């Protein structure tokens, strides 16, 4: 972490914003505290929040430029210690802005120690036409650690009728438990490319979302409960891999996907993290 201090980052350089945020959550008694918080550049958490009491620490990860442009490189490191429980979200929709050619990059690394829980539930990302981005997510779990994470991307500003006719979003996600990979997904959505309309790809839908719940406790009963819930609009499906439950969404907008994910989360959270649903207040603003 110390090395990145050398990076001049109070203003965006010719190479774009270089920002890095490190968050360390620790269990202290029966509380989860934000024990480490270091940042370089515009990626911050203002304070720890406790809307559901001391056991769960909520944090809102703020990126003041509110979007990523070509050349930006953002790194988020989250370290959840043994027995700690952290919930992280973002204050609004993220944006991948149009690029003149260079890629913007968002790298997310999440480590959760034995007995820890990390819920990484950023709000959706809008991928502007012409954006060039890379989204890398690496999750390292130890022992019986639990991770619940979601990603939702909307290709094109559908509100103004924009289609994602040009640009690229590259995705790579890996989840490991005790060093062994549970999940690997690599992809590349090309603006105007055939994956967007293909029935095996996005099927003409602008919005794609993935909800992942990694825990030794996921089982057929939980899968059945999740399968009993369907999105009101769009297509959704749930499957169960060893130690990992996966829900997929394709649809015309983020709202129905988010509502469906929240309904699934309401089932997953009590089963995997022993707590009732606690919708972050910022989602309602």
């Amino acid at each position, binding site marked *: 972490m110390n090395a990145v201090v050398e990076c001049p980052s109070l203003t965006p350089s010719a190479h774009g914003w270089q920002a890095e945020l490190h968050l360390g959550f620790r269990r202290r008694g029966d509380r989860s505290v934000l024990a480490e918080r270091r940042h370089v550049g515009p990626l911050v958490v203002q304070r720890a929040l406790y809307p559901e009491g001391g056991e769960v620490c909520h944090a809102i990860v703020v990126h003041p430029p509110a979007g990523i442009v070509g050349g930006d490189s953002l790194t988020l490191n989250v370290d959840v210690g043994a027995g700690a429980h952290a919930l992280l979200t973002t204050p609004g929709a993220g944006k991948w802005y149009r690029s003149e050619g260079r890629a913007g990059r968002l790298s997310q690394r999440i480590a959760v120690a034995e007995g820890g829980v990390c819920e990484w539930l950023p709000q959706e990302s809008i991928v502007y036409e012409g954006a060039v981005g890379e989204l890398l997510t690496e999750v390292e779990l130890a022992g019986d650690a639990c991770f619940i994470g979601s990603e939702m991307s909307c290709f094109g500003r559908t509100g103004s009728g924009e289609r994602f006719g040009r640009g690229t979003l590259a*995705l790579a996600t890996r989840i490991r438990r005790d060093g*062994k*990979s*549970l*999940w*690997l*997904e*690599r*992809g*590349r*959505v090309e603006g105007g490319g*055939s*994956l967007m309309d*293909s*029935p*095996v*790809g*996005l*099927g003409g839908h602008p919005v*794609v979302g*993935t909800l992942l719940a990694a825990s030794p406790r996921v089982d057929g009963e939980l899968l059945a409960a999740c*399968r009993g819930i369907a999105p009101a609009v769009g*297509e*959704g*499906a*749930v*499957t*169960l*891999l060893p130690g990992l439950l*996966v829900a*997929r969404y*394709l649809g015309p907008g983020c709202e129905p996907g988010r509502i469906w994910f929240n309904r699934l989360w309401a089932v997953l959270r009590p089963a995997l993290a022993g707590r009732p649903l606690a919708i972050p207040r910022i989602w309602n603003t």
Partner: protein
Amino acid sequence: MSEAAPAAAVLAPAALGQLQLVRLLQLASPALPVGAYTYSQGLEWAVECGAVRDEADAGRWIGDLLSHGAGRFEAPLLARLVQAWAVGEDAEVARLNDDFVCSRETSELRAETLQMGYSLVRLLTELDAFAGLPGWRERLRGIDSPAFPTAWAAAAAAWNIDAGAALAAYLWAWLENQVMAAVKAVPLGQSAGQRLLAGLGARLPELAAAALALPEAEWSNFTPGLAIASSRHETQYTRLFRS
């Protein structure tokens, strides 16, 4: 690896000898007793939900998987596996095998590759044809939860087949299985099936060449429509296929 690696890891496809051609035909044959014909990889759900209704739809579904799924992840991975087996990089084989298994995005797709991999490893370790190749049985048995392409690549490497030729044959076997699933599930006539095989088969040399050259950072298994179809197939009420 203690054994010497089989020679000639990389041959030009043109140099494929007649014995190697025969070996490839055996490996790519639907008669290979691994149960491939019992799997549709989500295609049966695509038919059920109306996404695939006719020959043209089936051609698009299968062709798009070649472009975006099997052709961009399984294919380049298979080529790397053949090379890794051939030069004795067993740690690399294990890494690629683990990556393939955890890249299977649904319960059925994962179960499919593990069942076929298990069946093929059993077959290969019992075949006398492998007895003359020192160390292969132990190397195959050393893989934890072998996936189908891992076991298949071992056979191709043991029989001295180069990665490019192996890849074309592997993709052909995959394609033939998908088209036969469409013939049964849509259903389509046998002529329609042969038309699809001829049309999609013509793309295989280019796909195999692209997969051979594709850097690992650009491998892609992101096909959310397939993931949803395969997940939905897991609860499909009436079905012929196991995936």
